[in-house]
């Protein structure tokens, strides 16, 4: 089995570098702002948490602190974009796009202005904060909006590059970030382009394909390694762009493998798995299993405890792969 040579060579080691996606975003935003003086940032009282603080320190005249008012933030950004700015609005995903969905729909997407919505602290990995703050519905909420591009990077480095790409992207973008430190699996040499799924692992004769996004990409690689020891060959795809879906790459890999498992830190309804299922139903139905949260809310706990409790662990992926291969043979 061959792994993409441009991935982190220490990927499977215990001492693999760990960094939070939001840190990558913080760096990317400063770089984007250095390249383009129209880039501005808005903040709803979470400058340290979302890492927009580095931008705020470096470009105070291009930074607006709006207090705890996410709806206002989305609409103010829309107004700034009409005047030629490229605004990044930053908060926790639960509040943006959670609280301000209709402002995003009408003022940003319907108006067709290039506001970039940065939702940090998405998913169960917020941990101790509990279910009220664990955003598991954002991919569904954003994916359904016309014109909105939806990106969920797999590591801090990819979050940095996704931020730079979003600043250049002609249109609104939702960028999904996570709070917890997670392994850095890509390198400076790994290509990244919005809308292009990355095949990380492609066995000569795949038994199935895992399509993952966000922190589930790393877990999927670990699962594939476990499966390999049991003689099961899995393709692993980092599908960082949930919309527009890279249908050509995904269909090629899915058809070659004959069955699919999707893995995401999100509700099973409406997220990456749904997007893939819609594509397969339209183009070529194949057995699919979902590794996702089964229509439930989260709760307090460590990220590791929660990922296990809600069925998002490495072994859960392994089991899903075996189930889908079973269905393939029937």
């Amino acid at each position: 089995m061959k792994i993409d040579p441009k991935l982190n060579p220490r990927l499977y080691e215990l001492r693999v570098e760990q960094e939070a996606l939001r840190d990558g975003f913080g760096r990317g935003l400063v770089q984007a702002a250095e390249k383009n003086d129209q880039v501005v940032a808005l903040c709803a009282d979470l400058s340290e948490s979302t890492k927009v603080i580095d931008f705020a320190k470096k470009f105070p005249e291009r930074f607006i602190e709006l207090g705890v008012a996410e709806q206002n933030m989305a609409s103010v950004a829309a107004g700034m974009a009409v005047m030629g700015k490229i605004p990044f609005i930053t908060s926790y995903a639960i509040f943006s796009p959670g609280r301000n969905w209709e402002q995003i729909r009408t003022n940003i997407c319907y108006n067709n202005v290039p506001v970039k919505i940065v939702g940090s602290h998405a998913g169960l990995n917020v941990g101790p904060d509990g279910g009220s703050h664990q955003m598991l519905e954002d991919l569904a909420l954003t994916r359904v909006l016309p014109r909105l591009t939806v990106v969920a990077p797999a590591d801090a480095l990819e979050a940095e590059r996704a931020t730079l790409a979003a600043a250049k992207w002609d249109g609104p973008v939702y960028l999904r970030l996570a709070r917890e430190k997670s392994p850095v699996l890509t390198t400076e040499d790994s290509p990244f382009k919005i809308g292009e799924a990355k095949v990380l692992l492609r066995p000569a004769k795949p038994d199935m394909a895992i399509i993952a996004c966000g922190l589930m990409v790393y877990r999927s690689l670990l699962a594939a390694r476990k499966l390999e020891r049991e003689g099961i060959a899995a393709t692993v795809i980092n599908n960082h762009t949930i919309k527009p879906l890279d249908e050509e790459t995904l269909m090629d890999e899915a058809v070659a493998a004959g069955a699919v498992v999707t893995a995401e830190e999100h509700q099973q309804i409406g997220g990456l798995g749904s997007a893939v299922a819609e594509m397969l139903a339209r183009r070529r139905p194949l057995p699919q299993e979902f590794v996702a949260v089964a229509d439930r809310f989260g709760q307090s706990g460590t990220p590791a405890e929660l990922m296990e409790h809600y069925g998002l662990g490495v072994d859960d992926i392994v089991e899903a792969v075996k189930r889908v291969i079973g269905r393939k043979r029937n």
Partner: protein
Amino acid sequence: MILTNEKKKYLAATASKIRRSVIEMLVEAGSGHTAGPLGMADIFTALYFGLLKHDPKRFDWPESDRLVLSNGHICPVLYATLAEAGHFEKKELSTLRRYGSRLQGHPHREFLPFLETSSGPLGEGLSQAVGMALADRMDRGRVSGRFFYCLMSDGELQEGQTWEAVMLAGKERPHNLIAILDRNNIQIDGHTEEVMPVEPVRAKWEAFGWHVLEIDGHNFEEIFAAVGQAKSVFNRPTMIIAHTTPGKGVVEFEGRYEWHGKPPSKKEGEQALKELRTLSGRLKHED
């Protein structure tokens, strides 16, 4: 700006023409809002025929003032005014709310590119206008000569987001932001003070650090004086509370909340047009 009698008469006659267009459009469309557009016709006339820096031949002129219509449902008066001012042919007005029309039921920037923003859902326009004013200040500093107008309704003062925007403008103090409130006291379900009281409006806006003026929204001298003063206030945004009569110009519609969200029937429309023509005739007669 001092208004001569001649200019006042011209404005009154123009407002009357706009009101007639509004009635004709609504009758033709068979749906839409009547009271708000008629009530705001004088303010729209004052803005597009005197106060706004704009060029109908060049809608993308960068020096233009910008106008955000937050309560998008009164768009018949926006469309009628834009047509009257020469932004497009008046005959297009009859396409209001039709399939394929640029004149959507609520304003849509994609179809009509010289609109600053698409609107309809209430409580969002002021935020966008604040965003525009702040972007302008980033680019041109505190001396920018472009002004950003936000026209809004009293019903949308019940939206929480309105106050988020009021608060932000109170903090950032953009000098180039002028909000005009259509204080007509009605909303779909009844009178504002019965549905959900918004008073004391003036004290609320003052408490957030705005410069507040109160005018009769049908008196051109007061409208011009208020906007003139708002432009000269250099260290904070201005709210002009314009007291208006919903349905203004047609006695049967005036002050009645029932006319908030429905169009006149063909017969009611004919009666209204007759009344407005009589008013117009009187204005001409006074010449």
